[in-house]
């Protein structure tokens, strides 16, 4: 179900807008394997009912029962000494989003930018959530080369090796999950979640999130963390109210 939220309207913003205005709300559902197909074949369930203005807010907290672990460097017997220390990855951040999203979610016209830094052999932030059509900058603010790449089907790219002070960028048009790595440093990894709507939030240091301007209706809210199984819950929000929904994620 959550997959649908990412894959529905998996098309460039221009096509999305045209489609949202004119097309029926009923579309078919396809498994993830089919997401490479052009956006007209992408899927969505029946949209939730929208009863009022965009004033409701969903907020809450995502609690991680076991703290997620850093990706360790691969143990190499060929090294001549201790591995240089690197920055800690903040794996506590989770992403909370609606699935499916309200219809109005697709009316955006801007072409946003986001940033995923490379510092002390770490991607910062470790989790980035963006809307489809976002261009993400990958500046190298480290002292060494990095080679950012992804082999994810949602977006396959390789930025090559570039030195400190330089930046390269990638545009993400297709909803889905993109796992990002560095070819040189095996312990560097990050996630980019690309949504076809704006109803998502990344949790703060304490796991809190807030999704604003949600139309009244009944939704499935999903909490995602790269190191934990996903959890989803149903919630009904009124047109002017505020709903609270907490999650507890733990390894099974």
């Amino acid at each position, binding site marked *: 179900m959550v997959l*649908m939220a990412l894959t529905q309207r998996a098309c460039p913003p221009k096509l999305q807008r045209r489609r949202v205005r004119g097309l029926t709300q009923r579309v078919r559902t396809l498994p993830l394997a089919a997401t490479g197909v052009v956006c007209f074949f992408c899927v969505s369930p029946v949209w939730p009912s929208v009863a009022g203005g965009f004033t409701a807010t969903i907020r809450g907290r995502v609690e991680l029962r076991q703290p997620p672990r850093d990706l360790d460097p691969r*143990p*190499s*017997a*060929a090294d001549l000494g201790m591995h240089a220390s690197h920055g800690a990855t903040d794996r506590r951040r989770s992403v909370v989003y609606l699935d499916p999203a309200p219809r109005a979610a697709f009316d955006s016209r801007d072409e946003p930018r986001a940033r995923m830094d490379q510092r002390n052999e770490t991607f910062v932030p470790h989790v980035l959530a963006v809307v489809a059509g976002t261009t993400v900058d990958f500046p190298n603010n480290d002292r060494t080369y990095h080679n950012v790449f992804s*082999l994810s089907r949602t977006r396959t790219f390789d930025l090559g*090796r570039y030195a400190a002070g330089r930046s390269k960028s990638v545009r993400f048009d297709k909803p889905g999950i993109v*796992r990002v790595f560095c070819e040189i440093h095996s312990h560097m990894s990050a996630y980019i979640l690309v949504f076809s709507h704006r109803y998502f939030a990344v949790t703060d240091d304490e796991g809190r999130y807030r999704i604003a301007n949600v139309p009244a209706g009944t939704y499935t809210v999903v909490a995602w963390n790269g190191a934990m199984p996903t959890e*989803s819950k149903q919630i009904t929000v009124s047109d002017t109210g505020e709903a609270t929904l907490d999650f507890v994620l733990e390894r099974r």
Partner: protein
Amino acid sequence: MFLLPVRAVAQWLPSGPVRLLDGRLRLGGEISATAGTPADVTFFNYTDYERNALRTFRAAVTGLWQPVERLAFLAEMRIDDAESVTAAAAYVRFRPWRGRPFDVQAGRIPPVFGAFGRRAYQADRPLIGYPLAYQYLTSLRSDALPAGADDLLRMRGRGWRSSFPVGSPYAGPGLPLISAFKWDTGVQARWLTPRLEAAFAVTNGTISNPRLGDDNGGKQLAGRLAVTPVTGLLLGASASRGNWIARAVPVASTAHAQTAFGGDAEYSRGYGMIRAEMVWSRWDLPFLSPPPEGRQATALAAWIEGRYRVSPRVYIAGRADRLGFSSITGASAAPPLPWDAPVRRYEVGAGYSVQRNLILRGSLQVNQRNGSRLDRRAFLTAQAAWWF
């Protein structure tokens, strides 16, 4: 609900090391299967273990146990061709001073000489074949020696199974300039800064013949200095000297040294990378009747390789490689000849990343040996390598 299928598409095999004891114990591994020409009668790619480097199956597990911050124990267990398990590496790593990038390692340790020897994992190497300096077997043996120049010239191009009148009466494989398949035993120290790396080692064997135990009472001294003048460029220089003749050989003294010097360079930028390395080695030979050139045999190997990533999943690579030998004069007064048959090797290949840690490779390698009956051979090879 969506996480698992999406994750499965992105990465359907484990991608990171196994973590135990709250991260103090980490296990990594590599499995590679290489399929090439079944019977290589030219023996161009034979290795120390009398195996064909282009037709192997290898499974290796590397463990790192770090009970405290400045102390670690490392070991790599390896199975080649589903035969016996060997400890390719087993050593302790210690950082004497907190905050100073100075490390000491003792045990079966990685080589400090050169650069290729520490690229022990398939993920670090763009091509399937090995550089000649690190794999090709010369006719010299540590347990059997030629009495004169004619004995040496008779074995030209037969390094995979040479025999000499002094020492072991049995035919056996010769020595490469540097072994890429065995590591030496001893103690090493390294100082590392962002721009400079200096390493020094005292070991039982030599770069040609790394050993678990000492077989001649002499130690090898080896060192390497590497600088990084700009990001992406690495320049290294190495030197080593150690006794190479085994105690079992009946010669007046085993104090005959292998002396080697090396230079290496690597430059990478964008989607391309170039590596080059040169190794010069001299073996002191206790000839009973020395040729006019003296009691020494030298060899020089040099190679350059490049890799270019044409897409996120696909790269192409190539290497040009040469191994030459000094000339000596036989008793027959014929013109001087290289003491072993010079070899050239060219290899081109491509790799496809199925996922981040699963690579499929293919390569075409052409070898040419001057001064031997079996003088030219091409090999088509495929490989699958997975690591975590």
